[in-house]
């Protein structure tokens, strides 16, 4: 929708990276590939006018807003769009760190129904970090126009995660999405994520690492993901742990 008050002029200097939330206010993160309509979903849910535009990489600022559903107020954080969470760039790092260390109550991954396969690459990476997430399959109208049909139930079953089809710009499916978010926050809607199984060599290394990590840092974090990052030689994560848990 073009530049808005919030995204131009003096306002660009006012960045809000810290999530200010009441303790009771559940924090919902919006993640996804670039240009899948995350900002449109964000605007539709919060009623704000974040800059939306049809090009990848537009959301460079982290936007936040709130929405109410059935008497509960939720805080929504719009993360930068990324193709992966392997932290090749600053944006990927922001998104990844928020989902892992920020520990949002629910992560909503917005996907583009017209190119599901590419979006699933990110989905499988997020699944590795947190089990508390919902797949919002957006742009269903465009998929239909392109004559691409997706078996939502089967997809949900294969992922072990609720999948909500939406057309955010026409506000279709948003009530279902809110219902799913509310259900997950209340703990009524649970997931059984079906994680990627890697090579035997890697899985064995993970089996070896996870218990040892657990003895050092306890069960507070998702240890399988942490182990994957250690194997990856992710210097940032290593330094982070080193600082927090060594000596």
């Amino acid at each position, binding site marked *: 929708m073009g530049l808005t008050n919030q995204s131009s002029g003096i306002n660009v200097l006012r960045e809000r990276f810290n999530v200010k939330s009441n303790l009771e206010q559940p924090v919902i993160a919006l993640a996804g590939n670039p240009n899948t309509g995350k900002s449109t979903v964000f605007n539709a849910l919060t009623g704000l006018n974040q800059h939306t535009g049809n090009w990848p990489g537009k959301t460079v600022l982290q936007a936040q807003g709130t929405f109410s559903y059935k008497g509960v107020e939720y805080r929504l954080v719009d993360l930068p769009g990324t193709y992966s969470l392997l932290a090749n760039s600053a944006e990927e790092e922001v998104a990844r760190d928020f989902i892992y260390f920020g520990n949002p109550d629910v992560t909503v991954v917005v996907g583009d129904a017209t190119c599901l*396969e590419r979006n699933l690459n990110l989905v499988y990476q997020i699944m590795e970090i947190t089990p508390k997430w919902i797949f919002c399959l957006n742009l269903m109208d465009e998929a239909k126009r392109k004559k691409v049909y997706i078996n939502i139930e089967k997809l949900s079953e294969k992922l072990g995660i609720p999948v909500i089809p939406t057309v955010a710009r026409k506000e279709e499916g948003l009530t279902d999405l809110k219902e799913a978010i509310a259900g997950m926050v209340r703990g009524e809607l649970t997931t059984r994520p079906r994680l990627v199984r890697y090579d035997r060599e890697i899985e064995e290394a993970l089996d070896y690492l996870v218990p040892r990590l657990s003895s050092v840092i306890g069960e507070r974090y998702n240890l399988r993901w942490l182990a994957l990052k*250690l194997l990856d030689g992710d210097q940032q994560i290593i330094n982070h742990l080193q600082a927090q848990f060594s000596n």
Partner: protein
Amino acid sequence: MAMNIKDIYKGLDIPADIFRDKVVKSIYAHAEETAKDVIIRENKRVDWDKKLDDFLTSPLTGFPVMLLLLGIIFWLTIAGANVPSGILSDLFFGIEDKLSALVLNAGLPAWFHGLFIQGAYRTLAWVVSVMLPPMAIFFPLFTLLEDLGYLPRVAFNLDRVFKACGTHGKQVLTMCMGFGCNAAGVISCRIIDSPREKLIAVLTNNFVPCNGRFPTLIAIAMIFMGGALVLEKSTMLATIAVIGMILIGITATLLVSLFLSKTLLRGIPSTFTLEIPPFRKPQVGKVIVRSIFDRTIFVLFRAMTVAAPAGIIIWLAANVYVGNTSILAAAAAFLDPFARAIGLDGFILMAFILGLPANEIVLPILIMAYLSTGAMVELDSIEEMGNLFLNHGWTWLTALCTMLFSLLHYPCGTTLLTIAKETKSIKWTLTAFLLPTTVAVLVCFCVAQTVRILGLV
């Protein structure tokens, strides 16, 4: 807990690059398999999107289509803005007459009339009637293109050219952002991962005329290049002049980028993938409403909040005398020799200097300054604005140099603050100020001197 994290995984001998390769492969294989299982595709007959894309991004037709689209937008803006501009200024100056009569009949002192009617009110009226119509047409049109998904295609077209200048193709996207607001453009440079190329994009973003400068460029182009002063009203000429300015801006961006990547910021361009998004049907109604509220009114409001006090200050400066000359005249006279050398005059240069907080107010300040020097004309149309400028010795060269200076000079205060914040370096912020200013002075000087030596004015 005297345990070293590194000790935990010391014994594992999977090299990191091979490990990542394997992980990524597994993820991709999973994604492919899942997608295959749940998607049902129908055979399509013709892929129109692809055909359109081939046309819009082909080396042969890509550039002409780009220029044509830009041309249509500016032609519509310029052709459409004339009439409402005239109506608005008629309206506002009709009100001014009534207000003047009211104030003077009420027995209020002359300085009050001068300060608030001739100062604040008149400047405001000018800002609204000159700037509102072009913005109200231009912003919705440009936003429609953005919503449609055309901008990444522009980036794709220009990528090769930018590569050749040692910079990143994504710089084009940051430039598109700059069309709206340079501060936002600078922020959007974060999409460029390589620090070297990001810095180049930050330093050159200013060469794209923003919200605040478009109305200035369009108004001057309408008066001098096309509209009012030529017997045959030529919207086409004005359109060409504005497009010319944008092309000059892009050329300046490329040349300065090339210069930077050969000198201060040496390096080779990094590779990247640019996703070309699908075309999407723009939400026309929403686009119009939002771009009027969010951009047009926003820019206008910013201009008005700065223009009203500026009007008062200028009126004061023009009416407070030190010896025989007003402060305003003295300041302009001081700047005049240098300003003349680069094709401007003292008042224009002063307007640019006072316009540092926001580019929107350069033109209003200039009008204010001219009006206060005694050359009172009845300003009731955009033609009269041209006459005002003519009375102060403007030629087409003055108009050209003013447009060039506006296009190339230092970024506004907000943008500079943003650059300081993004680069976290005073050195680069200063560079962002000095580099474009040097370019602007050099270009204007060369143009002015060449034209004068050739005797074209």
